[in-house]
């Protein structure tokens, strides 16, 4: 491609955008809105996934050790626990600390607490966390067989509920994201198809005057990329500001909900969206053109 046709391509893109301002605007808007919807749900899915992961990581096995077990043996249990596959964190809870926690939970139940406080019936324990939720059960079983361990606690039912819910969130979130992304790609390429269709006579004329397919395609692809990128730009701005807004809102009002930090999330998403916009614009234009180039 010689420089003339490059210059021509750019000039032609600019002209076409100007001449078809209304159509261009409509297309940009459609692209922007479509990407916005997809991006928004990308953010939501990412955060739900994050929350689900954190929730899963909260799940722990509590390993109680006998009151009579000497400190060295307790140490042994600790190192055995740490050696188990998948174990990421082992925290020791002393008798006093266990009591303090109980107090916190039953803060209103003074009578019960008074009773318990007289002679602390609570065991020393280890709270064990694993990398992946599936490792909870084997860890609990292994811990149960260690010497000095009285009993092992883990809320099987709750864990399973939690797993099922988080898995459902992940799967459906991803499914919705994919469906949405597909839908949006289709909407954008539909829009491009319609704009190309509206100019099929022009395309035919160009071919009759001796233009090659590539020569005609080039400005259209430029235009597609331009529309895609401008749309994506608007989208990124909107996502950036709305996520920042939601993020500080949640930080202030509901600090217990752990949202993903703004960066690198937003940066990644912006790159993704700009790329998607450009790509859909380019490919959409090129594909839509094909049938009208057969002149």
């Amino acid at each position: 491609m010689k420089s003339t046709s490059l210059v021509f391509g750019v000039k032609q893109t600019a002209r076409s955008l100007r001449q078809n301002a209304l159509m261009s605007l409509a297309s940009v808007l459609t692209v922007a809105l479509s990407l916005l919807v997809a991006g928004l749900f990308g953010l939501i899915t990412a955060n739900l996934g994050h929350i689900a992961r954190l929730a899963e990581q909260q799940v722990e096995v509590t390993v109680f050790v006998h009151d009579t077990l000497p400190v060295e043996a307790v140490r042994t249990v600790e190192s055995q626990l740490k050696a188990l596959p998948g174990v990421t964190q082992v925290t020791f809870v002393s008798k006093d600390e266990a009591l303090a926690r109980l107090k916190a939970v039953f803060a209103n139940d003074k009578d019960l607490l008074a009773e318990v406080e007289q002679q602390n019936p609570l065991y020393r324990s280890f709270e064990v966390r694993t990398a992946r939720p599936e490792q909870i059960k084997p860890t609990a079983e292994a811990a149960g067989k260690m010497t000095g361990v009285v009993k092992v606690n883990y809320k099987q039912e709750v864990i399973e509920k939690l797993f099922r819910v988080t898995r459902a969130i992940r799967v459906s979130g991803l499914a919705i994201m994919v469906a949405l992304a597909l839908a949006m790609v289709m909407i954008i390429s539909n829009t491009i198809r319609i704009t190309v269709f509206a100019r099929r006579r022009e395309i035919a004329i160009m071919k009759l005057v001796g233009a090659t397919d590539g020569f005609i395609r080039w400005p259209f692809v430029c235009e597609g990329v331009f529309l895609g990128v401008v749309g994506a730009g608007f989208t990124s701005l909107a996502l950036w500001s709305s996520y920042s807004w939601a993020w500080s809102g949640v930080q202030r009002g509901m600090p217990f909900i752990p949202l993903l930090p703004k960066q690198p999330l937003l940066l990644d998403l912006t790159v993704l969206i700009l790329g998607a916009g450009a790509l859909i614009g380019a490919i959409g234009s090129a594909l839509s053109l094909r049938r009208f180039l057969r002149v």
Partner: protein
Amino acid sequence: MIELVDVTKVYPNDVVALKNVNLKIDRGEFVFVVGPSGAGKSTLVRLLYREEVATRGQVIVHGKNVARLRRSSIPLLRRTIGVIFQDFKLLPDRNALDNVAFALEVTEASRREIRRRVPAVLDLVGLKDRARAFPHELSGGEQQRLAIARAIINGPSILVADEPTGNLDPDTSWGIMNLLQTLNRNGATVIMATHAKAIVNAMKKRVVAMDHGRIIRDQVQGVYAHEVN
């Protein structure tokens, strides 16, 4: 240079536009194609630059069967043929200047070349003042002259003119005819479908008369019609 061998063209809706047409045009000839409306004149010329493909028979241009051309060679063929379309086929979103420049741009001519030649050609057809106007802002005759300018800008070796004076007053028509004749003298083969009886009769060039898809007369230094009255 151009040869049609037993060409038949049937349009998808079963209209037979050309029936067993044989025609040979040598390099540098000037040929009028005449005949009543619907006789097949436009169809005939459309075969040359492959807007349409013959249903049967061969269309040979520059020694090649155009039906057999590779897809990528078709633009090259078209660049050697300047076409003045009966319905102008101007690009609606470009002004006069750009419409003409476009035909040069597709050949990847240099920008200097374009800046030099386009205004010159517009001047030649009398559109210098209207260079910035869009097709819908031009009068019928101005559009036609713009179509002519675009067809000749490339210095094509074959010039196909389909009714190039239909919207022009006699004076302007004769101006255009002189232009075509000059191009012809400089080596271009000119094929012109027309109803302009006065012009055909005055020019004394080869006349191919058609009717109902057949060539009914092919006459050197011919006239528009053998008048009965």
